Structure formats: C-alpha cells, structure tokens
C-alpha cells in the first residue's frame, strides 16, 4: 500500500535543443519535495516547464541537471515496478477497448491477474457504474477523464501524477470533477503531483501550492493550504480561500512570469 512514498526533485533543470541549435532552458533550477501522502499542486503560466517537471517524475523525460528520486530510487524504477499512476489532459484511453478493458489495462501491462472486484469498485468510485461496456467514443469528455483517473488508480500506485486532467472540460464539469477527485483521493492518500492552470482547482485539492515563473522555469512561491479535509465546496466561498486565491493570482501576474 501507499503512504510511505516521498518525492524529491533535487535541483533539477531541463534544456531543450532547438532545430537551429540554440539551447532553450525550460526548467532552470527547481528543488521540490513532496512528502509521503502529500498532495502538491503546481501552477504557472503556459510554457513554464511545469509539465516538463511532471514528465521527469513520470520517467518520460530525463533532467539535464540534478536528480529526481522517489524514495531514493529513480522514477524508471518506479514505473518498471508498476507503481506509478498517471492521467493526462488527453485522456489517452484506447478507443478499441471498453471502459472496463481500459481500466484493466494496467493489470495486463503489469502481467498481474486482473482483479475484477477492484475494477468494479473503481468504476463505481468514479461514478461510471452501468458504463462498463461502453467505448470511449460513446462517453462525454468528463466521463472519459474519470475512466482515465480510474485507470491511474487501479493498481494502487505509490505516486499519482495528474497533468491538467480537467484542462479540456467546461467550468461546471471541472468543478464537479474536482469534488470527485477529492473524494477518491480521500480514500487512499497517495503522494500526488497535480499540474494545473487553475488557481482555485489547485487550492481546493492540494495541501500545498507551488507557483512557477515563466521560462526559464523556477519556483516563485509556495503556499500551504490551511483547510482541513474532507473539504466542502463551501470552502471556496470563504474569505481565507479568496485571500489565498488573490495571493497566488498576484504571484502568477508578476512581471517575471509573463510568458
């Protein structure tokens, strides 16, 4: 089970080579620690390298400088042991598989016996009971994202990575998904990194919000979120929430942040 996994991005940086040979510094020097069972949200303007940070943690990119470790191991080790869960903005469900088969996929990839009870439980948890046999093309955008989150959670990963999972949804659906994600996360505190554009999504879901500057990416500010859990949507109307929201929005609007 999870609960004991801590993540360290130790002074990592990432450069990209352009076609003309110029070097672009996407991430300059970031030190970020995510404690065991902590939910950290990363916000910043587009192109600030926040997705790059997440991709380094997901073993999809190698840092140019510094080191990424999860409980002292490289992220590749974690993915090789099937202990990572991920949901992207593009739901990336396999269109030829049913909802059920998509959620089963991590078991198949890990060559483990498919735990049908676990799959049924997760499908119910994300509110898709009755849609087990549907294919992704028959679902709405919000439902697809729920399947993709169920898929990320099905193996009880130690680390959950969410890259703008609700970025393509309308505001109402997005809020609803935030509530559901909180409810799901509540059942099993997994060390989580959420990358998002939305300040209130970050505040509502996370224990700590980290603000990044525009290119080259650096950490500008960190804010601890004081609200207890489970959080009621009412919390978003409180004065404290608005104060933090203003503070974070202001940090995002600093001149150094302009993309």
């Amino acid at each position, binding site marked *: 089970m999870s609960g004991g996994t801590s993540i360290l991005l130790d002074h990592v940086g990432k450069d990209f080579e352009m076609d003309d040979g110029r070097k672009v510094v996407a991430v300059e020097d970031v030190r970020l620690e995510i404690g065991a069972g902590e939910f950290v949200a990363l916000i910043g303007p587009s192109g600030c390298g926040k997705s790059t940070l997440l991709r380094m943690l*997901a*073993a*999809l990119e190698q840092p140019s400088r510094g080191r990424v470790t999860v409980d002292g191991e490289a992220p590749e080790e974690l*993915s*090789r*042991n*099937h202990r*990572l*869960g*991920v949901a*992207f903005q*593009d739901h*990336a469900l*396999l*269109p*030829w598989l049913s909802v059920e088969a998509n959620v089963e*996929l*991590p078991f*198949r*990839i*890990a*060559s483990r016996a498919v735990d049908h009870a676990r799959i049924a439980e997760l499908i119910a948890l994300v509110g898709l009971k009755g849609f087990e046999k549907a*294919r992704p*093309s028959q679902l709405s955008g919000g439902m697809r994202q729920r399947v993709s989150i169920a898929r990320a959670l099905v193996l009880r990963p130690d680390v959950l*990575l969410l890259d703008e999972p609700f970025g393509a949804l309308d505001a109402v659906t997005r809020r609803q998904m935030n509530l559901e994600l909180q409810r799901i996360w509540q059942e099993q505190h997994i060390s989580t990194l959420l990358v998002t554009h939305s300040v209130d999504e970050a505040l509502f879901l996370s224990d700590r919000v980290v603000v990044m500057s525009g290119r080259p990416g650096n950490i500008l500010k960190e804010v601890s979120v004081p609200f207890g859990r489970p959080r009621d949507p009412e919390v978003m109307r409180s004065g404290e929430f608005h104060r933090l929201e203003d503070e974070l929005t202001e940090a995002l609007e600093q001149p150094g942040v302009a993309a």
Partner: protein
Amino acid sequence: MIRISKRRGQDIAYGAIGIAAFLGLWEYIGVNQLAGLTWPPLTAVLAFLFDPSRQTLFVRATSASFSMVGAGYVAGGVLGIVLAAVAHLVSPLKEGLGRLSSVIHSIPSIALAPLFIVLLSKEWSGMAIATLNVYFILFIATQSGLAAATRAHHDVFTVLGSNRFTRLIRLEAPAALPAIVSGLKYAVPAAFIGAIIGEWFGATRGLGLLMVSAMQNFQIPLLWSAVLITSAGSLMSFGLMSLVERFVYARYR
C-alpha cells in the same frame, strides 16, 4: 430493424444508377456495334458465359485462377505483415527492409514474370506475382499502421512500465489494424492482376490463359467472359473487404 440514413440511402441509389448506366451503355454500344466487332453486347457475353456446354471450361479456369489469387493473397499478406512487424521491432532492419521492398516493387511485374517462370515453374508464377504485389501493399500498410499509436498512448504505456512485447500486442498492433485492413482491401485487385499476368506467361490452366488464347484466336465472347469473371471476382472480394473495413473503422473511432 435496419435503419438506413438518408445519406446512405442516397449513396446506394446513386451507386445503383451508376452501375445500371454502365451496363446499359455497354449493351447499347455492343448491340449497335459502335466500337466495332470486338465489343459484344453484355447479353451476348452472358449467354456465352452461362451456356451449359462451357460450364466445365469456366469452372476449371476460374478455380485454377482464383486458387492462385487466394494463395498469393494469403502468402503476400502474411509475409508483408510479419516482415513489417520485424522491421518495426528490430530497428537496424527497418531501413533495409523498407528499401528492399520498394526496389522490388519498382520493378514492373511484367519484367519479373519470365524470371519466375525460369526460377519456379509455369504453374506457380501467377501466385508468385500475386504474392509480390500483395506483399508490398501490406508491408507499407502495416509499417505505417504500427506507427499510428499516439504519443499520449505511448506515454501511458511507458509510465505503466510496459515491456516491448506488451506494447506491440496491446497498443501498436491494435492501433495498426485499421491500416492493415485498408491494405488488405487494396491488395485484392493487386492479387488478381498479379495472378492473371502470371498466367499470361505460359500457365496450362486459368483465366489468364483463356484470355491469351481467346485473343489470339479472335474468340471475342470468350475473351470478354474471362474478363467478366475476373472483374466480378475482384469486385466482390473488394466489396467484402470494404464491409470489414467499415466495421473495423467504426470500432476504432
């Protein structure tokens, strides 16, 4: 209940009108001898074709040719899919296999046919050319199909810790299926062309042989009958594969 949308209904109607117009024009030109003696009316060809006395002749020729078409189609298909998968998995082979296939394909099969007759036998050169034609189409289709899975899908497999084999079986192969099925569809006429051309060069049985001998002996209805059988076989197989293709595409949307 079968529901046909207005658009589909229209398509079917236009298709039927087109075919009827084509056959009507064929008959009209033939009856009035607008294109000379070598253009018989459709009805004359059909009467010749279904004359009971020629039943054995056509059945023998058709089964000989169509079994060459079928054998070449299967052999070329398997070869194309398997070699494309090998090229996909073993990257040093990728360039070489692709180039070799293109070079072979760029040689006209007419030029290869005599070689096959010398190397193999007269009987098998039809199948060999059909195999070669089908192979190239399926090699290309499979190769592009295996590259069709999106970056996001690959990322998911990487993050979930997939090995190479699982990635091929669970992601790349299913993602390649629509391209492979399209390849199989376009390979149908290629297999027919290959087999018939192969038979022109001295096969002892088959529709291709029938065409050549009918041409040389000015047996016009016989020539058209052989062409009609070949075209009907090709069109029907092509239509069947189109149905399969539609089913697969619907599933993969």
